């Protein structure tokens, strides 16, 4: 595809030569972030848990996204447009695709205590979109 430079000299390091064909570094994947509610002063009304890991998605989106990330075909098309035609069209972003719920125990303003289960509080899978 023209990206590989034509040189007369063989690669100095064979490992480096093969490396370029492997998955690139810093690809889109799930990252940890341990959040303590005290950091946001939410511990005044959230009794349990004291914190949790919501995760977040970060990384580069490769060209071929459908197989690994379950992205729609549109994502690949937009990627090609960004690369080949118009760089002002945003390239696909690494974002959460699936979530799981979180249970909390909270203190209400009238001193009652409530156990609640909330949807979509923890990212469990990333996609490129």
């Amino acid at each position, binding site marked *: 595809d023209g990206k590989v430079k034509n040189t007369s000299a063989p690669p100095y390091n064979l490992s480096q030569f093969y490396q370029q064909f492997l998955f690139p570094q810093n690809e889109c994947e799930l990252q940890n972030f341990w959040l303590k509610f005290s950091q946001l002063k939410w511990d005044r009304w959230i009794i349990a848990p004291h914190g949790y890991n919501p995760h977040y998605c970060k990384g580069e989106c490769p060209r071929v996204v459908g197989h690994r990330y379950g992205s729609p075909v549109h994502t690949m098309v937009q990627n090609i447009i960004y690369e080949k035609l118009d760089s002002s069209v945003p390239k696909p972003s690494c974002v959460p695709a699936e979530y799981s719920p979180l249970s909390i125990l909270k203190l209400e303003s*009238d001193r009652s*205590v409530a156990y*609640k289960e909330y949807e979509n509080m923890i990212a469990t899978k990333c996609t490129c979109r």
Partner: protein
Amino acid sequence: NSRDEGGSQPLLVSDREAAEPLSMLLFPPDAKSSHAVLSPLFKVLTGHSHQEENDGGQRPQPDSRALSYMKRLYKMYATKEGIPKANKSHLYNTVRLFTPRAECKHPAEGQVKGDLHSVDLLFNLDCVTALEHLFKSVLLYSLDKSVSKSSAITCTCNLIVKEHDPSNQVCSSVPHTMTVELKRRWVEIDVTSFLQPLIASHKRSIHIAVNFTCLKDNEPLDSKWDFFNMALVSPSLLLYLNDTSEQAYHRRDMNPIWSDLKNSPLMNPSEKTGKEPIQDERASRHRRDE
């Protein structure tokens, strides 16, 4: 409560006073010496943990026993990471625990064998939203003291739901009789059938009168069961609810559409319709599309 006769005095506190330590309300600083001669009732009330004053948005702390119960419930329902446990069989995603705002204790007039007392309880349900539907409601009693050997007490509970209109009061037609096993720290009385109409109509507060008659070995309780008598004074109200709002977690089994799909022939074509394999494949594709 003008309709209460017999000189009962409701214990009502304002929101500001509710933030002060309970002992300060009952005992002025110079009255400490009278603490020792007060009845067990006051001893139980002052045994509640002190409530912290409001401090820059800090919410008033709940009753310590109520908090203990809810923390135990949380450990049962959620993992250490805070994720709802998958093996949970119940269908509710919200549990609320209320302590009574006011209690009105009636003197035991015309005391019959084993008769204990009648308690009026007022619960404020402002926090219950219109999207939270009731599954179950329970009066929760906490026993401070457990009995080492197995002991059982039989209690008959009469419950009256009081309305502002005295002619509209709902009385329990069948007294609720239960056997209280004293090895357990918590005693629960299911009051769903009584409270369901009130909560369904989004009442902001409910007023109920609870009357207990307890016997052990068919005899009234003697003084050594005082701890049990006192525990019956101030129950908490537990509401098990299904929050139907978008933010709340809805298990698949809680969604009626999902359970319809599970039970439909589409999900089990070969068993229920005896279709040929090629038709099973079409049904399988149809299932995937759905």
